[in-house]
């Protein structure tokens, strides 16, 4: 698992960005975790770049302090950073959530305030409700964007619980 994560992260961090051409194929789908009756797949929906993400010890009983690893090279300054989460199942929306990650004064996270070209590697817990995921397939759209609404990262994730 660790080895896989490392390969994934290195690949995504080192791989040069796209040329921004129009007819480019979609980014490949990556596996973030497959364990304990849960499978999480994701695909970058930012035409400019792919990124690396993995989850440690995922299971159907989602722990409230889930650890993730996330790596990306910034193409925007992130003085302010926001996260939008949209959860859908079978085409109907279940949850829409918007969360400020970085604010200008006294940032919570060490990567806040980083500038274009810098590398972010986040390994740590993410807050969540810690619920049991009912059986089924869920789609999650995750988007990180700056105060000027420029996309920093975007992912279409699929969560399959069996």
């Amino acid at each position, binding site marked *: 698992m660790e080895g896989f994560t490392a390969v994934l992260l290195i*690949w995504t961090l080192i791989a040069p960005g796209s040329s921004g051409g129009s007819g480019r194929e979609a980014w490949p789908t990556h596996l973030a975790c497959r364990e304990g009756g849960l499978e999480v797949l994701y695909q970058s929906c930012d035409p400019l770049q792919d990124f690396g993400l993995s989850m440690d010890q995922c299971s159907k009983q989602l722990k409230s302090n889930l650890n993730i690893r996330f790596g990306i090279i910034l193409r925007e300054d992130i003085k302010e950073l926001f996260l939008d989460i949209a959860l859908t199942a079978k085409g109907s929306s279940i949850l829409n959530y918007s969360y400020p990650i970085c604010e200008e004064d006294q940032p919570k996270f060490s990567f806040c305030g980083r500038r274009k070209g810098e590398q972010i590697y986040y390994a740590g817990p993410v807050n969540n409700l810690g619920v049991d995921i009912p059986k089924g397939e869920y789609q999650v759209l995750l988007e990180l964007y700056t105060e000027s609404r420029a996309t920093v990262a975007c992912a279409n994730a699929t969560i399959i619980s069996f």
Partner: protein
Amino acid sequence: MMFPSHLAGTLIPAMAFLSCLRPESWEPCMEVVPNITYQCMDLNLYKIPDNLPSSTKNLDLSFNHLRHLGSHSFSNFPELQVLDLSRCEIQVIEDDAYQSLNHLSTLILTGNPIQSLALGAFSGLPSLQKLVAVETNLISLENFPIGHLKSLKELNVAHNFIHSFKLPGYFSNLPKLEHLDLSKNNIQNIYHKDLHILHQNSSLNLSVDLSMNPIVFIQPGSFKGIRLHELTLRSSFDSMNIMKTCIQGLAGLEVHRLVLGEFRNERNMNDFDKSALEGLCNLVIEEFSLANLEESLKDAELFHCLTNVSAISLVSLGLYHLKGFHNKYGWRSLELVNCEFEQFPTLELFSLERFILTENKDGLTFAEVTLPSLEYLDLSKNGLSFKGCCSYDDFSTNRLTHLDLSFNGVIIMSSNFLGLEGLQHLDFRHSNLKQASDFSVFLSLKNLRYLDISYTHTRVVFHGIFAGLVSLEILKMAGNSFQDNVLPDVFKEMNNLTFLDLSACQLEQVTQEVFNSLSSLRLLNMSHNNLLTLDILPYKSLQSLHVLDCSFNRIVASKNQELQYFPSSLTFLNLTQNDFACVCEHQSFLQWVKDQRQLLVEAEQMLCASPLDMRGIPVLSFRNATCQMSKTIIGVSVVTLLVVSVVLVLVYKFYFHLMLLAGCKKHSRGESTYDAFVIYSSQDEDWVRNELVKNLEEGVPPFRLCLHYRDFIPGVAIASNIIQEGFHKSRKVIVVVSNHFLQSRWCIFEYEIAQTWQFLSSRAGIIFIVLQKVEKSLLRQQVELYCLLKRNTYLEWEDSVLGRHIFWRRLRKALLDGKPWSPEGTEGAE
């Protein structure tokens, strides 16, 4: 991170494969500001583009493959001010690479794996103020060849491999240096000699960021006598003990602002307690900031070395054990962000001028505070409930100028700011205001300049709600509502108002005189309401209006005659997202839209909502020709209708005449059954039977007369009989004129048909017999007959024998005219 070495084997082919996939391209750079700013990010460039103008001032070459910067690389761009070379895979920078860039003020080298940096790499650059060399494999500052950059203000060498905090001697050549970012490096020990240059040179006013360095030791006395503007040490210590000794090592430092704490994702300490900050007693600090410590802080003892600090900022600390702050601190500013207070802290700080408490847990209830010097109060984003807002008693200050209670819970307005007359800025947005429209809440706020009550569930019923706000310049009240959804005259006396936001207020109508006193208003936002027409008269008096936003309404059109009253100062009018009706009825409004295209914001985004076939089509593409076309169609159809109806009326009126005409064609001449059809009044029937029939039918030669009482076929309409039996089958018509004749409608009808008949058969066929002296007055009513009798010869029935003899002779002669010679007649005559 530790990477297993065998992975390199898989990575290298992968990289090679990827680079094959990306052929070199020469896409042109994006022109952001012509001749000034060019964006060449991520264009697969292998060399510096040479097709850009030499006047370029801002050049972004990030995310390309430049790899090697030779000398005079940028000689084509002598005007450059900002140069971004982030992630350009630059490994080598030769001598004089940036030579001749005399105006360059910002150079960004982030993310380049620099292996060889020539000693003269940065030569030239006399104006450079900001150098960013984050993630550039830098090992020490000592060898960094920047000693000649006299105008440098900011040096960012974060996220490198620098081991030592030794500030090189060349810093004494950088008199303007203000910011030194050394965060995320490998500095472990700080010795007295490292700061030698600062001891010597006290004129520097440096801000140093040492966050995320694994600092374990600071030699006591290193900072003694040194003055820094700012020192940041977040997530720099691995444990409480290291932090404690290191802070003691800072003794003697004079710093304007000291920032301690951790980051949420870079937490190291888990045993923080109040003793950690004991060493701060030996420092001179103006402002102190502590952020993101996981441990809960039990008491205010923590701050006993900070009593003389001017400003304290505490962010994301577990202060839930803390009950409040009492008057032993000389703080002037206190900021508490996300500190998890379980109840509203008791505050009794006589010198405090500025107090901020935000992002606390929901559900606090405001408790009175004693802050007699308070000027600035921000209690936003706390879910706070406020039982009686607001007056002097709540804060014990009459100096308050700024009050922010936005994003809170229920705030009951019970007092109209008595004792708080100095307020200039008041913000209640997204809190739930109660009783705000019950009385003149803001009556005493004569100095208020800014008021925000957006989304406060306020329903304006009382028209005096804003009474007293004579100095107000900005009023934001989006997302509220008004009684009956009509905007009433609530803005009296607001002569200084420049900005008014009334969006999302469910407004359907605006009263005419509502904006009459707002002569200074420059921006008016009426968007997201339910206005149905663009009613211009209310805006007529807004002499200074610059921007009017009426987007997201249901405006169908505007009244034509009003369009001329638009304030002439208007420069932006937003009418997008409305329900425009692109029909000819509003043709002049649609034409006005086209004419005012410069005034309208995103005019091409204004779309038709009706009629159905025009839905989604831009208003600008509505063609007037469509209307002209339909006008012609309407005109033609009206004329046609008119003609048809005239024809129908004529047919109706002359139906019998037409019947006659049809009959005339059918019955050719000579087939006449009768010699004459007699038109007479039934009152004169005696004369007809006894005189006319007797003399003509029984005389020689005998004539056949058509008489209605004898020859008309029963069961057929009288009119048809008159025409078909009477006129069609007779050669002549005898009209027996008398007073009775003139009075009978049937007779007059028959006479009129006879006239037509005579005209159609084009022969003199009517013989008039005047039976008795006719009354002139009656005759005059029949003007035609009167004229005819005047002009034509007629027979007159006379009483004398001679007269009668002549009468019959003349009548016979007239009847004989055109009578065919028939054998029957000859026989009868013999």
